[in-house]
């Protein structure tokens, strides 16, 4: 079974790691070899690859070959303050297939929210090769940062943050 068209998974890493990656890339002049970076930082290579992938999804870097290249919007991102960064992330998330799908799904609900179980079912259906639980956690993390989604664990509500 393949994933639904246009919808791709996101790696399960945190946004601060992505920002750190972009920063260090900038420190090194905007271009670096991925393997070398992992070695220098003493970072697990497969973990770093995930961070690179996430940075790519957020359109902050490019990854030609095994290299990391800082994109102009990545440089802009670095110079922005924390609130501007959130706006940028939010914009990028909106453009991402999976987040877009969830935004539209939530918008059609009464109270614009869903129980976690329901979201997990949707994720399992859309991306059958991914672990829905892990994916959910990453979605919540990214969504919260971009102030796109919210999740109240006590009341089990995954909801659309105010527009």
């Amino acid at each position, binding site marked *: 079974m393949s994933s639904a068209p246009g919808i791709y998974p996101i790696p399960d890493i945190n946004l601060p790691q992505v920002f*750190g990656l972009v920063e260090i890339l900038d*420190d090194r002049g905007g271009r670096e070899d991925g393997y070398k970076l992992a070695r220098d930082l003493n*970072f697990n290579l497969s973990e770093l690859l995930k961070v690179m992938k996430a940075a790519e999804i957020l359109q902050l870097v490019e990854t030609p070959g095994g290299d990391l290249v800082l994109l102009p919007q990545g440089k802009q991102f670095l110079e922005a303050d*924390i*609130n501007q960064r*959130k706006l940028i992330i939010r914009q990028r998330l909106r453009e991402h297939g999976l987040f877009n799908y969830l935004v539209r799904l939530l918008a059609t609900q009464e109270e614009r929210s869903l129980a976690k179980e329901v979201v997990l079912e949707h994720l399992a259906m859309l991306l059958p090769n991914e672990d829905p639980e892990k994916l959910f956690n990453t979605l919540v*993390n990214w969504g919260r940062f971009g102030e796109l989604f919210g*999740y109240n*664990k006590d009341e089990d509500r995954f909801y659309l*943050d105010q527009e």
Partner: protein
Amino acid sequence: MALLELKAVSKQFSRGRGRLLVLDSISTTIEQGQFIAMVGPSGCGKSTLLRIMNGLIPPSAGQVLYQGRQIDGINPECALVFQSFALLPWLSVKANVEMGLEARGVPLVERERRASIYIDKVGLDGFEEAYPRELSGGMKQRVGFARALAVEPKVLLMDEPFSALDALTAISLRGELLDMWQLPDMPVHTMVMVTHIIEEAVELADRIIVMAASPGRIVADLQIELPRPRDKRTEAFNSLTDRIFSLIEERA
């Protein structure tokens, strides 16, 4: 006037059959607006010194003066950020941040307002209702920062705040700390950070106090004049780190 002054502060702990002298007659002053890093090998008592500064631990000898007066107990104008984050797992981010304010009897509405502001400042907006176990290390430390900033201290004391984080998150958080420190509307402009990573100290601090162990004492007090943001690849940066490293090494 110096904000914080330490006069011949010593600290002994009774261990087993003897007494361990952890700090030996430390004297130094901390001025308003400085970013000070304390570096040294493990066992040099830098964490203990930090806690003495904020009044968590009393000194065995010597005095700690805040704004000219001797402190007696916890100094409410200092706030601490912990290496292991020290968040309560059953409280949401918002409740954790409000904790210091709650302890001071700040009424509910004001508490929520202030907590909101600082949660926003550390970039955790949207995470108010999250619980610590849903957060990564970097996020948890941000909560730690928000909690400390919410009580609007005059001095921010940080005990190895980034050493429990992975390399990339640490980089990101360090940058944000610097950004925050330089904002005009921040309540606190004096920071004391304990770290064992020399690069971190050189990257962030105006002044580096180098310590040695057994017993803990100050061996050097360096002013860092490099303009920020500091570039790790420059000659000046590297010579500084080398110098500090050798200072520590020769006393080991």
